[in-house]
């Protein structure tokens, strides 16, 4: 693969649970696909991942099967047969599903997963990685592999904020370029007594992007198995999600938009 172009990896991470990593991962993947990119979403919440749940997929092959293939012959490994397709009204993206069995999940090797992710990078324009909220060996390598880390937080009560702060400090201590890390606040305006500016001050940095709280829309999309950006495009949460993705793809700047379109089309042909 020397000389081959590698795709952009967006690692979606948080240090608190249930802050919306999975919801935002699937919407990022969907929106990027909607814009014409070749996208793969990997469920790396290995034990209790929700990607297949939220998209109503019934994968037959998973990351666990991919691991077996890598272990048989790493050099000949091709990730494509292990993906599951998601499509909705002409928008398509690939999903690397999490293990079906917990025992498989427990026996996944972070090194092998890193190998799989790297191989996927050569096949796709964008790779979105959904994770768990802990600094596990696997997640540390997924943070390394990320072109961009979407560090997701919510402001609900003190313990969550404490964990967001210590997570932020830990990521900063890992020596990444500061523009690799994007602090995104989710579920803004949800019931809370805490002032946003206080939180930004505590974190030492403003939020890169803020996503509104819309529990009903989020819940509906999960029940339907369709990402919000595809199903209810007018909802303000969907708009903000698209806006966020736009900032990642330079879509917001008109000139580069066409350029990017060309390059991704170009890349697809030559892959």
């Amino acid at each position, binding site marked *: 693969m020397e000389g081959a172009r590698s795709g952009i990896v967006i690692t979606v991470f948080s*240090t*608190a*649970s*249930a802050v919306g990593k999975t919801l935002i991962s699937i919407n990022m993947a969907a929106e990027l696909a909607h814009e014409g990119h070749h996208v793969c979403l990997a469920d790396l919440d290995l*034990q*209790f991942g*929700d990607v297949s*749940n939220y998209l109503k997929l019934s994968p037959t092959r998973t990351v666990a099967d991919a691991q077996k293939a890598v272990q048989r012959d790493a050099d000949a490994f091709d990730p494509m047969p292990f993906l599951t397709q998601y499509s909705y009204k002409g928008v398509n993206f690939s999903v690397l599903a999490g293990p079906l069995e*917990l*025992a498989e*999940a*427990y026996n996944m090797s972070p090194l092998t997963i890193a190998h799989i992710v790297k191989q996927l990078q050569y096949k796709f324009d964008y790779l979105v990685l959904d994770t*768990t*909220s*802990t*600094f*596990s060996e696997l997640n540390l390598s997924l943070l390394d592999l990320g072109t961009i880390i979407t560090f997701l937080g919510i402001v*609900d*009560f*003190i*313990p969550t904020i*404490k*964990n967001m702060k*210590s*997570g932020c*400090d*830990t990521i900063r201590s890992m020596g990444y370029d500061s523009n690799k890390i994007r602090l995104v606040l989710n579920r803004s305006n949800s*019931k809370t*007594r*805490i002032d946003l500016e206080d939180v930004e001050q505590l974190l030492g940095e403003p939020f890169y992007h803020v996503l509104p709280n819309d529990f009903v829309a989020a*819940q509906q999309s*999960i029940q339907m198995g369709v990402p919000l950006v595809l199903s209810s495009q007018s909802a303000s949460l969907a708009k903000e999600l698209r806006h966020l993705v736009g900032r990642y793809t330079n879509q917001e700047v008109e000139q580069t938009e066409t350029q990017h379109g060309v390059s991704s089309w170009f890349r697809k042909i030559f892959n």
Partner: protein
Amino acid sequence: MDYRVILIENNRLMLERLSSVIKGAAGFELAARYQQPGDALGQGGVFKPNLILLDIDDRANLQFIPAFTQSFPAAALLCISSHWNANDSSHVVRAGAKGYLIKPFTAEELGEAVDTFGKSGMAVSSDVMAFFSPKGKSGKTTLIANLALSLARKSGESVAIIDADLQFGDMAVFFNLAPQSTIVEAVRDVKFLSPITLNAYFQTVSDNLRVLCGTKKPDYAELVDIKPFNDMVRMAQSLFRYILIDLPAGFNPISVAASELANTTYLVAMVSGGFELQHMQRALDVFRAWPDCEQRVKTIFTRVEPCNADMQEKLGLVLGYPVAAVIPNEYLLVSAAANNGRMAMDNDPNNPLAINIARLADAIIGQRRGKVG
């Protein structure tokens, strides 16, 4: 209840000195004293002691510990030594001693040592409860904190929380504690500790509730090794009647170790319109490999609406496993309490959350009494 003490001390002068301390200590009675352990083993039984103090400066005495615990099953054994020895302390605890006391001791120190092991006698077998959740945000920290308070109040016995949610434990925040020592130090030092000294690593919340707080930074988590963690919990068992262990989400070395060690593992999940039930089933499938799963593993759902017996049964049917407790949604109450470092139990003992948790505490205490008495 008075402690009837048998003292074994080889050094004649020390024997005199300690004897007079014991005689002068309120609540203690010197039943008999010997210079040789063999004499104590052979003759001490007639005095029906319930506390044995065995000198281990004489190294040869170490080997008698199992014989003492066998011959005096109703008595607790404390080893006494003129200096602190790390290896000895863990050795004696493992051999069956309940603790370790530095001599010469004062009457207060003797009383403290005995108190540390429980007021109603030191031969404590405690209930260890591990709280496992498939995914995070299950409401289990709130549950544990309030349940521990309730257990402490209702039973009057000693209760401890161990925050083993290694990277992102919240217990210190919940109780507004600024710990001097945490699980990291306790596990690191365990091989140098005896139950009495381990006790100092726990922070005091109330008279009979103590908390061993989680790490101060996520990267300290890797300092906590499983084997010494297990040793630490076992040592804590001689300090507390009830031990509640908070854990990180999912199956990982610490959550697996704690569940295996615990008498009861509670699987906790929050009902929030997602796939919590499926995740719970998936987790249960793993625990079902235990032959005594039904006795040892219980499930609890939090944020249940409406929170009543019907719903509890319904959840159990869907799950295919009995649901031990349901906890209602009291988001604002809980967050307001956590933000202030106070417990929902304290803010309003009559709110539905407090009532449901109190009910669970009653069941736990009742079950224990049933087993013991």
